């Protein structure tokens, strides 16, 4: 096994709301290897976005450590660290400055990370927009007048503009129709291959996971309950919760129904 690019070691995160205590992440350890696409799936509220935020340095773990290339990441991240890891947030609206045009947001991402010549920026922005299936004219518009899926694609384009080594994608295609989703997934695959990117892909869509992830981590109630190669996980889930999830996916073809039913039957209660 090569050294992991990102290593999460015994990480826990607690929140307090009034009198209640929330254990959002409960003693999670996992390694992410360079060039892989690791999917994170699981219960809504099981701590996936909390973990993503901690990887980005947005909120420190209550305990435990996160290491990048064998060096522990500090709570306060340097500019260098911010360049190396990018996040596509679950809610893209909050991530985009409402007073900045789409083009300005993308140019800023290119500037901050010093990519290309300044004079080439407008062309680079147009190319980015085209790659995610948007009209280059969209550069002049503001985020508030965009559809849900248009915003989501802007957030993806911005993260890719940064050319970071690790990209954490939190529900990046949930607002896309399946045709545009396929385009974006193909783009992500191509960039992963050409730039040797590493993805942490958080999603509820197990059909997407099956087709793009190398490995899958399953979360429930703040805990990592199963982690396996994608093929293994779908053929032989070891955890009851994983089979429950797979067998509840709404599907469209008879082959998928058969796969689902097979898992529903092996489940032992």
């Amino acid at each position, binding site marked *: 096994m090569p050294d992991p690019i990102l290593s999460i070691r015994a990480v826990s995160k607690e929140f307090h709301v009034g009198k*209640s205590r929330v254990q959002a992440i409960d003693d999670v350890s996992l390694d992410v290897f360079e060039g892989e696409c690791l999917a994170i799936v699981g219960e809504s509220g099981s701590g996936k976005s909390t973990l993503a935020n901690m990887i980005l340095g947005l909120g420190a773990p209550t305990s435990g450590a996160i290491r990048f290339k064998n060096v522990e990441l500090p709570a306060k991240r340097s500019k260098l660290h911010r360049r190396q890891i990018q996040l596509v947030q679950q809610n893209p609206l909050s991530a985009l400055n409402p007073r900045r045009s789409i083009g300005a947001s993308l140019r800023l991402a290119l500037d901050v990370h010093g990519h290309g010549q300044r004079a080439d920026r407008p062309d680079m922005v147009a190319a980015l927009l085209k790659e995610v299936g948007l009209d280059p004219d969209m550069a002049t518009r503001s985020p508030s007048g965009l559809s849900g899926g248009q915003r989501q694609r802007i957030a993806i384009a911005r993260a890719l503009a940064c050319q970071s080594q690790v990209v954490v994608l939190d529900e990046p295609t949930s607002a896309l129709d*399946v045709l545009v989703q396929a385009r974006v997934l193909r783009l992500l695959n191509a960039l992963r291959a050409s730039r040797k990117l590493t993805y942490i892909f958080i999603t509820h869509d197990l059909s997407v996971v099956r087709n793009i992830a190398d490995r899958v981590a399953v979360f429930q109630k703040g805990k990592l309950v199963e982690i396996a190669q994608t093929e293994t996980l779908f053929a032989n889930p070891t955890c009851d919760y994983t089979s429950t999830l797979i067998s509840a996916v709404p599907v469209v073809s008879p082959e998928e129904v058969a796969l689902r039913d097979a898992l529903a039957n092996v489940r032992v209660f």
Partner: protein
Amino acid sequence: MRPDLTLDIKNLRLSFRSWSGSTEVLHGIDLSVAPGERVALVGESGSGKSVTSRIVLGTMQDVRHARVSGQVTFEGTDLAKLASVERRALRGREISMIFQDPSSALNPVFRIGDLFHEVLKRRHPKISKGEARQRAAAILQDVSIADAERVLSSYSFQLSGGMNQRVMIAMALINEPRLLLADEPGTALDVTVQAQTLSLMRDLVEQKRTSVLFISHNLGVVREFADRIYVIYRGNIVEHGPTAAIFDAPQHPYTQALLSAIPRLTGGGVPDIEERSLSFNDPMISHGTDI
């Protein structure tokens, strides 16, 4: 006009004005929903699904640079004939909406419990804080939220994406509307919680004959939930008909491409299908189901 329909949309057009001119985004849409019917609107990202639902809700008409024309009839009443205040009175009572982006629809300066109180006051103006909290806690349990008390005491930014989405769903259902506009209600939910919320919506439809306009990119969910489907591409309805007809015998090139791009649970890789084609502009296909 068909007074027996819950929602009847005829030749709906929408354009946005900007400094560079006017852009039309809806090019004359016809769509209807009968009492107790579950109708899905599916299609391209950016094709006009959310704006259509916001016109029905009556909020798009108040956007200054938007121009709406055509006819939208709710239970026999032409929405254009209502004053802005009358449209507002329908909202949250007779017509409610699950917004695509729950974290921006939930006001971050109020706790979830207080937001529920405001929503309930629209139907029961005298409801007490205590009673509102009790009813909110009960419906949150119905959407699989285990620690309802904690959620009611939280602000939206202290909840996960899917918890906010369930709060929105619960708020939209709590006043038992006549028409539910559900814009991507399940995108942040795991499949088991999603099944739970869908069955809650189904119960409301069956018990109260509520009508649902359901917008979703998840075609597996649409197939399980909808009675009828409209497919939209670039501001035009390109095909509509009963769910089985659309899935088993899609006729329009756009619908065919869309269905073939669904990623499969059985694997096989990311589908490689062009998402643009001239044939997607072909005339509309109707599976002869005008109700």
